[in-house]
């Protein structure tokens, strides 16, 4: 699992690559620290190359959402694949995020 964070248009873009499963989420928790520190900005999660998300990954996204909601920022999820969309639907979390397609 690789997470790359870049600044763009006054916000941050985090590019996820690989599988965000439970073991990967432990490291990802540390990797997203810069996002939590900039929670007042728009944070775009580019999931074009994200293959899978586990419950731990969902928790990670929910943590980001909670933090940005508290500090006036927002999370935009970009280009999740159909399987991950299905996960968001089955868990009832779809409407919590702005989910954009390319």
């Amino acid at each position: 699992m690789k997470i790359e964070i870049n600044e763009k248009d006054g916000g941050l873009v985090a590019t996820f690559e690989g599988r965000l499963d439970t073991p990967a989420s432990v490291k990802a928790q540390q990797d997203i620290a810069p996002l939590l520190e900039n929670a007042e900005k728009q944070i775009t999660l580019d999931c074009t190359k994200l293959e899978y998300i586990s419950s731990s990954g969902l928790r990670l996204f929910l943590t980001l959402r909670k933090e940005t909601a508290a500090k006036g920022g927002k999370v935009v999820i970009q280009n999740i694949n159909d399987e991950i969309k299905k996960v968001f639907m089955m868990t009832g979390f779809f409407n919590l995020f702005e989910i954009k397609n390319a």
Partner: protein
Amino acid sequence: MEEYGLDFHCSALLDQYRKNLDLYNKLSNVVNDKLREHIRLSGIELNAIEVRVKAEKSLVGKLERKGSKYQSINNITDIVGARIIAFYNEDVDRIASIAEKLFVIDWDNSVDKRKMHQVNSFGYNSLHYICRLSRDFYFDREHPELNTIPFELQMRTALQHVWSAIQHDIGYKSDIEAPDEYHRNLSRLAGLLELADNEFSRIRTAIADYRRHASVLVKNGKLEEVMLDGDTFKSYLELSPFSKLNQKIAAITAAELHETSFMPYLAVLKSLGMHTLSDVEQLVKTYEDDAYQLALYQLGSTDIDILSSTIGLQNLCIVYILRSGGGRQDVCNMFEHINGKSPNNELIADIIMEQATRLPFMAKGNKNEV
């Protein structure tokens, strides 16, 4: 300094005003801060609040008209003035009560113009208090005189303000004598606005009564008498109506339930034809087994152990649509109510319609029992 050709007495008053200008500005800031803070704490919604120091030219005009009646500058009580515009008559009274606690009121010079009209006359309605800062609430050792300068507080409703502003604008108060016909037209409008103010108050009270009544009905389980709306839905949610279903769904994967707002579902329930809370209750009773079956089908083969607290309600709505003979577009519409317009809703609808073909309750045939 501009010269205005005032007599000696009025020029002396103007000099006093100029010397005091910094104090007036300071007083104006204190009055502004105190009023805003205490009105905010009381929860009163305001249309506007403004605090100003009388401009020099405006004071000169006043001195030219009636300067001889003022012995000292402190006899002019509106050099610092605050105007508070509320929406309801009752709020004007509440603001007055706040002012009475915050400031020392000069009752001899304060006037409730709302009560000055004869039973058969209408006109300017506003509550005017002449105040000073109370030492209990504000004292500045460097400027103790701030507690001695009077200021005027005007309190009125938005409609009273509109009438007053228009009356002022058309020069009703000017020296030109207006024909009786115009007086009568303005008075008639004042009467109309007074009636509107009373009606707005009555409507607000009636809505508050309805909310209290609906809340009691919900608590007493008389759901068939309660119309479904934002307020009543919130009251209903306090009964945790989806909790049992949620717990059952969460047990499938020993999942944690993540608290999420149910309010986006209000529009969905209404679009599904639910008019009363009893309709929603019936939805839960009739379809909770099927909603559980849907969750079991979706989650049973996964290890997802976190779910939204809306999952039970989401599945109830999906099942209701499917069991009522609804199709892809109806499911799509449901998610549009929740997520807003998005191509993702079509994808979700496709997934659900595909899953529906494998759900055991769909084999039983459609029904609509709510």
